[in-house]
């Protein structure tokens, strides 16, 4: 338990360092753009692929499970929309990204730590925590909502394509289901969650990388810890935010 408190304390102190005034804003802007490309645009492929198949599978599974004549077919479109918007595009996509992006951040910073690159920055007088971590946090909090929106469109689109081409639902019914009792706040809710998840993924992963000691083996262990802790925190915060925002 003491170790947990120590880790929370170290994490908070690291965040204080991260959010101090940057040395040169111009350099940070350049770094943020680089990180948007690395963290966001280079994740488009995996996010797109997952969303397409999940949207298609949700549509087919809903259709397969509706065997009562009392349940209208448009429920398929409604279920696909709700699944994609409320949970899949934010929570599941961010869980996947915690593996891809979080692991990458932790191993990158961890390797810099064990090869003394971070020490080199500190000796120069650079706030290494801010230089290395702040651009990643800002980039992720900015680009993840776009990834999630793309995921929603792809998933719902794939559902329409698969549903109509396999004949389980007509396009009219699917569209009706998509529009049925649509609340815009649900999109806001999912985007708020995404921004929180983006912060968790980048800051927790960076924390584990930044405090890596030892050699390559420890870098691997830090990456694993970064992914596991990020996932656990995403799940907990998902519950808390849902309770706070939806109920």
């Amino acid at each position, binding site marked *: 338990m003491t170790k947990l408190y120590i880790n929370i304390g170290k994490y908070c102190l690291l965040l204080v360092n991260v959010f101090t005034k940057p*040395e*040169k804003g111009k*350099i940070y802007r350049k770094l943020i753009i680089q990180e948007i490309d690395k963290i966001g645009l280079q994740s488009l492929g995996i996010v797109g692929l997952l969303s397409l198949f999940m949207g298609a599978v949700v549509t087919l599974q809903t259709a397969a499970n509706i065997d009562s004549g009392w349940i209208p077919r448009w429920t398929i479109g409604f279920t696909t929309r709700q699944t994609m918007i409320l949970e899949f595009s934010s929570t599941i996509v961010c869980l996947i990204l915690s593996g891809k992006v979080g692991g990458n951040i932790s191993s990158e910073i961890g*390797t*810099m730590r064990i*090869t*003394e*690159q971070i*020490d*080199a920055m*500190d*000796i*120069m*007088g*650079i706030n290494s925590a801010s230089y290395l971590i702040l651009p990643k946090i800002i980039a992720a909090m900015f680009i993840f909502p776009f990834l999630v929106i793309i995921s929603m469109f792809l998933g719902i689109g794939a559902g329409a394509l698969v549903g109509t081409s396999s004949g389980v639902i007509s396009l009219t019914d699917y569209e009706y289901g998509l529009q049925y009792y649509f609340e815009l706040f649900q999109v806001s809710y999912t985007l708020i969650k995404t921004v929180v998840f983006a912060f968790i993924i980048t800051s927790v992963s960076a924390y584990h990388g930044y405090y890596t000691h030892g050699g390559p083996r420890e870098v691997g262990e830090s990456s694993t810890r970064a992914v596991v802790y990020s996932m656990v925190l995403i799940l907990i915060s998902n519950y808390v935010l849902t309770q706070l925002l939806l109920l």
Partner: protein
Amino acid sequence: MIEVKNISKAFNGNVVLKNVSVEFYPGKVNFIIGRSGSGKSVLTKCIVGLMEVDQGEIIFDNRNFTKLDRWDRKDIRQEMGMLFQGSALFSSLTVEENVMFPLQMFSKMSKSEMLDRTNFCLKRVNLEGKNKLYPSETSGGMQKRIGIARAIAMNPKYLFCDEPNSGLDPQTAIVIDNLIKEITYEYGSTTVVVSHDMNSVIEIGDHINFINQGELWWRGDKREILHSDNEELSKFVFPSHFMQEIRENLKG
């Protein structure tokens, strides 16, 4: 001048430095030598501020580094250059970007001025035209030279070199040693070299400090080291029977 006054450092009760006091002089190559685990790297890390001392003071030209907070230390840090044992080059940046990095962060130079300064530093370490290579595309000796170029980019008043010759062949090691010596005399910087390479010590050492079991055991110059009666120092400098025979001959 760097003055280290009575510093001590312990890790989980294990005392690594015991009341060490030592001075490093400007325009001289000051060595810290000692066996592996003797505390010399910890001493250097304390001096550059990568570790906090438990007690004692470190004074850079009448500025008490230990009493300054992180923000006030920045001014002194910008006067430091450091060559790391593993070079610590930024692997994602080219040679040019590595050398230019401190200039970009702290100087008010224009881009062309920074480029001129970078090219000057690279020329100084005989690496002209290697600007666009990545560290992974260079040899160990080249990486050390890039490290030196980066360390001197900001005209440092204090130059620290941690095991500058580790992993290098003897000829390349001499090249790096001479470079450190030339730069020290040229810039008048206070250079501190941590090493257990006696060739380097004899080749370029002006002032030598021998650390043993976390304490300053001996200090002097390279001529005195050969004739010292300090038993621990003699064991370190002349470790083999062959070397001891040479020492006896020297004495004779």
